[in-house]
């Protein structure tokens, strides 16, 4: 499954990987906001906005080709609306839609490619996200693999029995999803028991995170760069 790729990137090591997750989150948000609020994005400014992405890929020792290709998943959606804009005679908007959505996706990829999800979630938590939500996301990610494997089996099972008409196959698929639901439910119960067995009582103290001087510098430079991109006259 392809989320594994991102995970492998995120467990690498580089200057970007060792930055505090909160700092990286804030800088990424700064970049995204600057980009999103830029009116009438020209190609020249778009090129300027591509610079931090390139820098991020370089600093984070990320595979440029693979990352840029992954960011392209937004393109079908953007291209459709870009086409509408062109039809409506608004080419500037077409360019802006494609460039903004693509660069935003690439920026998020640099963030998650250099920050393991647990750290990212911990960072969000320290920035004020409710722990309940980050825990749910963590469990979701942890069991995505396990449940997907079940689903893969159920899918095959449904396919195997799928020689009948569409109606029958529809029923078979519904049965498979229902079984998957019941198994997931049972699985969750097992997990909860395992947590209790190891002394869980509702709240496990999380490991602390520390911000160092390099982080602070990175934050200042990062946000300043985002603002500069937004406002430098071209």
């Amino acid at each position, binding site marked *: 499954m392809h989320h594994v790729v991102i995970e492998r990137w995120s467990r690498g090591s580089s200057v970007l990987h060792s930055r505090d997750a909160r700092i990286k989150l804030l800088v990424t948000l700064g970049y995204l906001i600057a980009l999103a609020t830029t009116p009438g994005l020209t190609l020249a400014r778009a090129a300027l906005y591509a610079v931090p992405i390139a820098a991020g890929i370089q600093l984070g020792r990320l595979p440029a080709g693979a990352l840029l290709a992954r960011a392209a998943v937004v393109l079908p959606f953007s291209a459709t609306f870009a086409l509408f804009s062109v039809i409506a005679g608004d080419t500037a908007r077409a360019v802006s839609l494609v460039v903004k959505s693509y660069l935003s996706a690439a920026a998020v990829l640099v963030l998650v490619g250099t920050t393991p999800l647990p750290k990212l979630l911990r960072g969000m938590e320290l920035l004020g996200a409710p722990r309940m939500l980050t825990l749910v996301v963590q469990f979701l*990610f942890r069991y995505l693999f396990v449940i997907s494997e079940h689903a893969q089996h159920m899918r095959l099972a449904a396919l195997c029995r799928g020689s009948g008409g569409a109606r029958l196959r529809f029923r078979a698929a519904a049965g498979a999803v229902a079984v998957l639901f019941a198994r997931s439910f049972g699985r969750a119960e097992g*997990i909860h028991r395992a947590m209790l067995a190891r*002394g869980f009582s509702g709240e496990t103290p999380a490991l602390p995170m520390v911000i160092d001087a390099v982080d602070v510098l990175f934050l200042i430079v990062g946000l300043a760069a985002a603002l500069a991109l937004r406002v430098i006259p071209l």
Partner: protein
Amino acid sequence: MSERKPVIEVRGLRFRYADGTMALDGVDFRLYAGETVALFGRNGSGKTTFVHHLNGLLRGEGEVTVCGLPVKKENLPTVRRKIGLVFQDSDEQLFMPTVLEDVAFGPLNLGFGAAEAIEVARAALREVGLESLANKAPYHLSAGEKKRVALAGILAMQPEILVLDEPTTFLDPPSQSQLASLLRSLPQAKLIVTHDANFALALATRAVFFEKGKIVAEGSVEEIVERFQWIPRTLREREFTTHQAE
């Protein structure tokens, strides 16, 4: 041995699942300090259900006492600290994002500081020979590695009693003997649910046999294995003859 106080004592334990399945139907059982007991039984005979009663994950009718403490709501934290339970399904047990964090989960819950918890976790991983996997995600481990990490997660809590639900499934023969010698070196009382007669013969001082939610026989491992023909070789022979008959 019988003069010593049992560390686990179970009397007349009954349990019915919500769907009506009578999973435990009057279990009487004792585990004494320092001994290792093998728990045999057919699939579905109630072994897992039984061990989940020992630390109050499930609560049925009857009495369960751990180190003299009855298993009831107010004693649960203490009981769970005393009993280390390795689950049959490691995927349920390994829920944290990395191996190290998972092993540290128990110690953190016991109130260890972060640094201390990490240290204890590393030591436990060393004990099961998997220190090199500390930063891996649990779902990328092989099934046998998962089992060993799950065991490390329990060892890190330094429990007084070890309960292992089928610890040898997925382990290759070298890992099985490693596990056997690791378990032999640990001083705790142990209850081991297993289908593996050889593993039990190598470790256990006593065996009990489960059937339909009850203990139907008790004795030395050899006796029980003999009586219930609990040796894979005979099974294989039988399978072979039925194959031939077809």
